[in-house]
């Protein structure tokens, strides 16, 4: 189909969908309305179980089964990336040249790295109290690790990141979530039931029964998953070369290229 025809199709379809969406928007309850039956019930249920952050209670208790699904999507996407970005028969690895990063950048990276890791842990740990949790904190911690690539070079990162343990950690954290769920089933009530542990003092780190456990499992899963994911891309972009392709001469050796290539 030539671009012109396609544009016509997009215009027709887009116009129809736009009309539909606008008509629907006009019939939606006004923005900021007061009717949120499910939301109000969720807040009450969260307070009953001594979880200060209602969102965490919805995520890791009331709708923990959804989170299991999301967690699995994450797990599957990472496993899929690993398979898709594997080194194939016609490729080999060429170790990159050490990069030469300016001293201030290097110092900044080394200074911020521990701070960022701590922040990640803090965000995970306080998940059931204040905004944050396993999903956010895991990403922060994993991103922090890659300051080593930005501030030093890929080899420095590889030294602290043997990929095997992270892959195993990813899978084990997923299993931990599932095992907690099955424990709920065996412990007499239902799958993922939060009835095994005491709910603790409201607004403390140990409150909420299994919520902190599931939260921690998610944090570990996400952190490991992101590390593995980025490892796949970094390997492809920096190390893996096809037959006949030049190795990376210089880690920053980008040719000056016209954009839009």
């Amino acid at each position, binding site marked *: 189909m030539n671009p012109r025809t396609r544009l016509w199709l997009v215009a027709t379809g887009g116009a129809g*969908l736009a009309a539909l969406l606008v008509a629907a928007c006009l019939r939606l309850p006004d923005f900021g309305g007061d009717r949120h039956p499910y939301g109000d019930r969720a807040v009450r249920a969260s307070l009953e179980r001594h979880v200060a952050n209602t969102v965490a209670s919805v995520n890791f208790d009331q709708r923990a089964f959804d989170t299991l699904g999301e967690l699995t*999507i994450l797990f599957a996407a990472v496993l899929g*990336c690993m398979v898709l970005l594997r080194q194939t028969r016609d490729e080999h690895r060429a170790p990159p040249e050490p990069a030469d990063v300016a001293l201030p950048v290097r110092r900044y990276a080394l200074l911020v790295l521990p701070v960022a890791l701590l922040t990640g842990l803090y965000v995970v740990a306080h998940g059931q109290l204040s905004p944050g949790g396993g999903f956010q904190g895991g990403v922060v911690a994993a991103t922090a690790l890659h300051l080593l690539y930005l501030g030093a070079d890929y080899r420095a990162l590889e030294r602290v990141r043997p990929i095997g343990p992270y892959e195993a950690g990813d899978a084990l954290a997923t299993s931990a979530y599932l095992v907690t769920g099955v424990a709920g089933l065996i412990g007499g009530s239902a799958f993922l039931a939060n009835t095994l542990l005491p709910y603790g003092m409201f607004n403390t780190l140990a409150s909420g029964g299994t919520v902190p456990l599931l939260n921690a499992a998610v944090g570990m899963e996400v952190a490991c998953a992101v590390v593995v994911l980025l490892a796949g891309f970094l390997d492809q972009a920096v190390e893996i070369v096809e037959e006949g392709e030049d190795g990376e001469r210089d880690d920053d050796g980008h040719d000056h290229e016209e954009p839009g290539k």
Partner: protein
Amino acid sequence: MTAVLHVLPYLVAAWVFLAGAYGLATSRNLIHAVGCLSVCQAATYVLLLAVGYRDGATAPVFSDMAPGTRPVVDPVVQALALTDVVVGATVTALLLALVVQVAKRHGTVDPDELTELRG
């Protein structure tokens, strides 16, 4: 002002979704197309959170305020969106991994030049 505000968030979500879909359909670069897809995804978050908003309310987080003192917004949509944001990023990564392989095997990331599957 208020009449507009009552639907503006929804309209913005619809606009963002349509814009992303337009970009996807007319993209000349698969990396750009994946970026457009994440724009579409952002539309869903905007819509979800707009649906859950309540005038004059605050976040349903009681670490720094006592329960019941202020009205709170709907936590359910937040929970739905929050997990999806992170998961969406990894799905984007999966798509990008496929783009890398398309570039390797076809030598191009321009959808106009991918002509192997047709008819």
